Each structure stands twice: as structure tokens, then as C-alpha cells.
């Protein structure tokens, strides 16, 4: 509550100082003789600059002080406690400090307070009051000094706008580094944890092992086995391939129809409706796979004499295929419409039918872009998590049968990190090694796809 009040006070100060700057600036614009002087910057900038110079240092001090004060007060209180109070363990000390804090804030205790606790509480209360007073005094004096000093600097020739703009530019740059820091963070954190994992398990066993069966074992125990990634990689690829086998024909044909044949009314309805598929959360697809698609495929397989499990690579693949249809159809649609009209006209003029024009002229011209779209969809399918968590059956074995349950890299990451495992054990750390692998695979797919699409765009622009 106290902090909230202070923040409000700071904001009000900001507004007030801004006004002071504004007034001062308008005043210096008119000289004693009454004639107007040209200011370098508009009065607004003088106000803003004064506000920045006055309030930012004060706010900084406030933040630092609040960050340090509790620790300092605590150690000062501990320092004057009698030796018998310090006899216990760390935990006892924490409880004691808690009691003293409760006493000093007036919250009180449920039992009788010991005399030294009362004195410590009084001391703490006194320290807190002194600290607060000092802080206010410091902030007030610094703000006042900055105000006076900078108020004097407001002169017609002050390049206030340039100063303010430099601050703005600095803020903008700071913001744009966040995205870079994220990438750096992803790479460093995953690399670091993966390296810790590889100190338990050799990279050869991890990347080329064919059994995934990590057992619980104590930290540091040698001979960690069962960390072979291949079954997971294969499961991931199989599901992605099934998904592409569904999404590519449907998505591509839908894109061709919408771009080349559909009347504009159909197009304006069908295109956004198909794109709805891209906006539905993946957990919803997972649930859909679990309660509708899985049982349907299972009974359908039974009528054909096939043994299809309700949660299998096929179920997950089919539903994931539905999910990535819009990725392929929208991107392909964009790319097909970008093929120059002259190429179509040429083909039609020679007597080719529309479908011949599309198949022999438009598609070959659009092929690089479509390949890019397919690669992007593939990367989406490989990194997809919730559908496979719910619908793939979580059985990490090497199998070529799409009707069997499989497991993927993403499922395993979730499984390894949501249990009650110690973060330092290889069973948890393997998630980061898998994540790094996943990151590299999708990164390669994305970069290739982006390069292809960009090249293609340049070709026809």
C-alpha cells in the first residue's frame, strides 16, 4: 500500500515537474524587453527533459533503497541480538526474525514475547522509521537539487529536443534487444543444461541409441543407459509425415481452388473459415483426437480387420494434419496469386485449359514457394506438443506400424519435466538435450523455408 502511494506520488511529481519546465520554458521565450526569443526546442521538450532529469534519479534511488533496506535492517537487528537467541539453527533464526517483524509491524504475537524480542522489535521499528526518513530526505534533496540545477539550464539555446530524442532512441534500442536476448537465452540455457546432461550420457548413446528407457538412478551413478533418441525422433517424423500426407493434398488443392476457380464470394467466406483451424488451441485438437478421431479410427480399422489403437501415430498424425491445413493453404494461396497474370494469359492464349495452365505453368512457377510453405508446416508439426501428448499413446519404441502407439520428442520433454524429478538428474536434463535437438531441427527447416520463400518473392516482384 505504501509503495502504491509512493508510485502515485512519483507520477504526480513527474507531472508537476513537467509543468514547471513548461512554464519556465515559456518564460525564457520572452525576454525582459518583451520581445520573443527563438527557442531551440519547443516548451514541451523542456518539460519532458526536466521531468526525466528530476524523477528518474529519484526513482532509481527509491528502487535500489527498497531492494537493499530489508536485508540491511535484518542483519543490523541480528547483530544486536543476545547470544542465547542465536543459539538455534538457521530455521530457528528465521522464525525468530519473523516473530520480531510481526511484533514491530504491530501485527502482534499469539503468545508472550520475550524481552529481547521486544527490544529487537523496537529497534527494528526504529531502524525502519530512520531508513524511511533518510530515503525520503535523500530522494527529496536529490530531486530538488536536480530540479533547481536543470531549471537553470532551461535557456533558449538548450537542445532539449535532441536530449529527449536520445533517451527515446535508447529506450527503443533497449526494447529491440529483448528479442535477441531471448534467442541468446534459449541457446545458452539449453546448451548449458544439455552439456550437463552429456556429462552423464555420451552424445553417441543419445543421438544414435535405439532404446528409450531412462530408469531412475541416483545422481552421479555411472553407466546411465536407455537414453537413445532415435525412437523419439522416428515417432516425431512418422507423425509429421502422416500429417503432411493429409495436409499437403487438401491444403494445396484448396489453395488452388480458392485462388484460381472460386467465385469471390466463396473465397471470402471459405478462406477465413479454413484459417480458423490455425487459431484453435492445440489442446482442443488433442481433446478432439482423444474423444472423436481416435475411437472413430479404431472402429473403422476394426471393420477393415485392422488393429488400430485409439491413441496411435495415425490418430495424432490425422489430427495434426487437420491443424496444419491452413498453414499450407494460406501460404500457397498467397504464392499462387503472386504468379504474374501474364504467364497464365500466355498459356490460356495457346489453347491450354485452365487446369493445364495451373498444372503446367502456375504450379511449376510457384513450386519453390509451395515447398517453403510445406517446410514451414513440417516444422510446425515437428514442434507440436499437446496433440501428441494426448493422442500419440506415449510408447517410445521403434516401430514402422502407424497404427501403433508411439512417442515423440515433445511428449518426452513434457513427461520428463512434469514429474517429481530432481532438476539435476539426467532424467530431467535430457529434456533440454531433446529441446536443443528440436530447436536445431526446426531452425534449419525454418531458415531453409524462409530463404526459399524470400528468393521466390524477389523473383516475381
Amino acid at each position, binding site marked *: 500500500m505504501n509503495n502504491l502511494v509512493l508510485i502515485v506520488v512519483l507520477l504526480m511529481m513527474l507531472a508537476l515537474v513537467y509543468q514547471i519546465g513548461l512554464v519556465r520554458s515559456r518564460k525564457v521565450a520572452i525576454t525582459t524587453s518583451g520581445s520573443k526569443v527563438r527557442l531551440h526546442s519547443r516548451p514541451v521538450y523542456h518539460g519532458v527533459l526536466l521531468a526525466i532529469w528530476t524523477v528518474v534519479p529519484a526513482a532509481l534511488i527509491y528502487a535500489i533503497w527498497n531492494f537493499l533496506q530489508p536485508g540491511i535492517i535484518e542483519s543490523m537487528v541480528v547483530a544486536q541480538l543476545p547470544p542465547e537467541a542465536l543459539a538455534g539453527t538457521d530455521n530457528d533464526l528465521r522464525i525468530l526474525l519473523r516473530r520480531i517483524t510481526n511484533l514491530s509491524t504491530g501485527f502482534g504475537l499469539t503468545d508472550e514475547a520475550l524481552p529481547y524480542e521486544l527490544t529487537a522489535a523496537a529497534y527494528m521499528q526504529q531502524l525502519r522509521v530512520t531508513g524511511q526518513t533518510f530515503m525520503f530526505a535523500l530522494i527529496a534533496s536529490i530531486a530538488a537539487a536536480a530540479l533547481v540545477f536543470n531549471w537553470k539550464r532551461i535557456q533558449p539555446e538548450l537542445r532539449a529536443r535532441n536530449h529527449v530524442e536520445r533517451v527515446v532512441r535508447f529506450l527503443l534500442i533497449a526494447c529491440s534487444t529483448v528479442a535477441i536476448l531471448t534467442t541468446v537465452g534459449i541457446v545458452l*540455457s*539449453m546448451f548449458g543444461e544439455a552439456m550437463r546432461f552429456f556429462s552423464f550420457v555420451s552424445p553417441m548413446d543419445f543421438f544414435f541409441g535405439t532404446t528409450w528407457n531412462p530408469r531412475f538412478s541416483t545422481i552421479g551413478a555411472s553407466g546411465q543407459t536407455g537414453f537413445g533418441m532415435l525412437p523419439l525422433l522416428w515417432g516425431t517424423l512418422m507423425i509429421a509425415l502422416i500429417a503432411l500426407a493429409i495436409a499437403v493434398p487438401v491444403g494445396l488443392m484448396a489453395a488452388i481452388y480458392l485462388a484460381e476457380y472460386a467465385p469471390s464470394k466463396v473465397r471470402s467466406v471459405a478462406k477465413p473459415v479454413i484459417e480458423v483451424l490455425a487459431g484453435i488451441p492445440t489442446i482442443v485438437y488433442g*481433446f478432439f483426437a482423444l474423444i472423436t478421431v481416435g475411437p472413430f479410427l479404431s472402429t473403422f480399422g476394426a471393420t477393415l480387420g485392422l488393429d488400430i489403437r485409439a491413441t496411435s501415430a495415425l490418430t495424432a498424425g490425422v489430427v495434426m494434419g487437420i491443424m496444419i491445413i491452413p498453414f499450407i493453404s494460406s501460404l500457397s494461396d498467397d504464392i499462387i496469386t503472386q504468379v504474374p497474370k501474364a504467364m497464365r494469359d500466355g498459356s490460356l492464349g495457346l489453347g491450354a485449359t485452365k487446369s493445364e495452365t495451373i498444372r503446367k505453368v502456375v504450379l511449376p512457377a510457384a513450386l519453390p514457394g509451395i515447398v517453403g510453405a510445406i517446410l514451414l508446416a513440417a516444422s510446425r508439426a515437428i514442434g507440436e506438443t499437446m496433440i501428441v501428448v494426448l493422442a500419440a499413446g506415449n510408447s517410445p519404441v521403434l516401430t514402422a506400424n502407424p497404427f501403433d502407439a508411439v512417442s515423440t520428442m515433445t511428449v518426452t520433454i513434457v513427461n520428463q519435466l512434469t514429474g517429481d524429478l530432481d532438476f539435476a538428474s539426467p532424467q530431467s536434463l535430457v529434456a533440454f538435450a531433446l529441446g536443443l535437438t528440436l530447436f536445431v531441427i526446426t531452425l534449419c527447416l525454418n531458415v531453409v523455408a524462409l530463404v526459399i520463400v524470400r528468393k521466390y518473392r524477389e523473383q516475381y516482384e
Partner: protein
Amino acid sequence: MNMEASNTESTSLPDQTDLAKKRDLMQQRVSRSLKRRHNQETRFKLMGMAAVGTALAFVLLLFVTILSKGLPAFWQAHISLEIYFDEEIIQIDEKPVRMVNESEAAFNQRMLAWQTQLGFVNFNRIILDAISKEIPEARDYQRDAMRLVTSGERFGLRNMVQEDPSIIGTSQRLWLLADANVDVWMKGNINRELGDAQQQLSARTRDWVDELEAKGVLKNRFSTALFMNPDSRSSLASAGLAGAFVGSLMMMLIVMFLAVPIGVASAIYLEEFAPKNKLTDLIEVNINNLAAVPSIVFGLLGASVFILWFKMPLSAPIVGGLVLTLMTLPTVIIATRSTLKAIPPSIRSAALGIGASKVQAVFHHVLPLAIPGILTGSILGIAQALGETAPLLLIGMSSFVASVPGTPFEQSTALPVQIYLWQGNELRNFFEARTSAAIIVLLALMISLNAVAIWLRKHFETRW
């Protein structure tokens, strides 16, 4: 090709009859091939229509499935009982009032002691008394009778007394939530022909349910529990979305206040100020990539940076919000950049031409024009973050939380995570519908966000 052939031949005329024959032959060939080609054309077009149809059918199937499963769950079995707050059963002291010279701690202790006393009151007996008013033989079969009302309702009654002890000794008619299994039986979500061994309720309870339903005492009423209660595992019928909703709301607010300003600022810098060189090229590639990085990787980042390094609390909305912020950032940046790109350079030139600085030109002239586009992109990004599940699981949000979080640092779940938890509940007959209902709530939120975005785009976006 065929046409060209016939043309060349008609120019050189060797023999009339021969020529006519040849022309006939040619025309036959052409018309045959034309037929084939036209058939091909129709087939191709039909394939296209079939593909669009398939895609639309999938959308329809998805929505019909979810709606048909989920809508009934918004109405839940309630039982109307005459509850008498019996002073014989509720024997408690006066509710403590804080005295003038009492410290807060001492008062809290007295209050807790009173609440403990209240906690020992057997509210089940009050419910049983009320049930036996409807079914006289209920007293002899307490176990069967208590299966009618969900176990959480006794805490509901306790809270009523705690709020206002003066209701002791009075009676009022209340709609209490029926047990989850009663709901399942009433709605026919379990096969009624199954034998006793496979039924969740005893034969006697089932008969009672049918009897009470016929009397109108048991009824499907709109389920406020679904919206007002947090999750529950002991009393399945009263499990609700309140905790998940508040958790999601907090995360969305964090995303809104972090991702949007940071994203817009970096987009402005990259689009308007950054010099075009190798470094900015790299940043651009980096942002495009970040947008396509699987969401689970962001979860790993959150787990290792926020949880392991910064020791932030597990399962807290603040961590979830930060992770989702990082995930949404590229979306916001890309949307803002494309909006800025679409604003014609003449506007910048005009501002610069009359003496504005670059910052002034951007902030006074370009940015106001870009606001609708930026808002649309940001809302779409937030909607996407709202539905994200995988990264939240990795920062500990898969744990069961039975409270509504008060601050972003407390344990919480989120809507998509709640869906994940509910779909795994053992009582499938009940939770399949309730999960679908939760999905409907989530989709409704996302659709409204998207509708706002579309509306903004339609009404404010200028096409240059």
C-alpha cells in the same frame, strides 16, 4: 498443337477429297482429346472443391463435436432441499469480534479457533436431515443418501454459517449441487442397462434419483459452479474454472503490458531507425525464426531461466506471463513492422520536409496511422498466447491448484491447462462434457478477441 497442324494443312491444297478426309480425322482427334481434356478440367476443379469441402467439414466437425458434448455441461444436476440450520447440531460460540486493545495476531487466533470449532460441526447430518424430508427412508441408508449431494456442499453450508451465524435455527430452501454421478445418471451419460457392479451409484440411489427427478426436486439448472468455483478433486461436481480463469487473465495482462510496448518499440526501432546493415539483417532473421520456434522450447527457456536461475515460484502466473510474453513478442513485432511498412513514405517525407525531426515524424505522424494495425496484431498475439498449453506445463502449471490466485506470485492454473487436467480425470463420463464446456469457454474468449481484432481492422485500417 492440333489446331496448328490443321491450319498449316489448309494452306497447301494437294487433293480435295484427301484433304477433307484428313480434316475429318483431325477434327475427330481434336474433339476426342478436347473431351478428355475437358473431363480432366472438371475432375481437377472437383478435386479442388472437394479439398475446400474437406477443410470446411473438419472445421464443422470440430465445432459440432465440442458444442454437442460441452453445451449440456453448462446445466448441471441440482437438488432442492429444505435446509434447517439446526441449533442442536451447530453448537458453536459467538463469532469473535475484534476488541479495542487486541493485537491482530491475537484476534486472528481467536477467529481461527472459532472456525476450527465450526469445522467440527457435522454439516453432513444437516444435509441428511434435509434429504430425509424428501425421502423418508434415507435415514436408514445414509451411505446411499449422501451420494445424492456432492461432498463440497457441506463446506458451502459451513461458509454460509461463517458469514452470518444468525441463520442458525432458521431454515431455507436451497438448490444444492448434486453429485457428479447423479448428473451422469440423469443425463444418460452412462449406460443405464449396465449391471450394478459397473454402476457408480447403488441401485437404491439410482431409484431415488429417478423418483426425485419425477418430483421436480432434482433438476438441471444453469451451473454457476462452473464459473464461480476453483478446481476440486474431492467434490467433482463443484469443480469450476474460476482459478484457471483468473490465472489466465493475470497472464494475459502481463503479456499485454510487456509484450505490446516492448514489441511495438522494437518494431519501430527496426523499421524506422535502425541502419540497414548486416546486424539488422541478422536481427530480422532472428525475429522471424523466433516466431516459428516451437512453443515448448519457450517452456524450456522458462524452466531453466526463470525457475532454475532466478528461483521464481513454480506454477505462478508471473512466470507463465513472462514466458508467454517472450513467445508473443515476435508476433507483435512482425505485425507492427508490416503495418509500419504499409504506411507510405510520403507521410514521413512531408513531416521531415516541414522541419520535424525523425523521432517527431515517427511518433507524431506515422505511429498514429499505424495504431489500428498494431492493435489488431497485438490482440491476435494475445489470443494465441491465451490458448497456449505446452510451455505452461513445463513451468509447473500441470499441478492441481484448488484456489483462486490473489496475486501473480501464487500458485495457479490457466484455462488450457485446466482443460488438460480435466481431460485426464478418471470420471470420464462426467469430465468429458465438463472439459468440452471449458473448451467452449476458452474458444468463446478467443473468438471474441479475434472478433475485436477483425472489427478494428475493418473500421480503422486505411488502405494506402
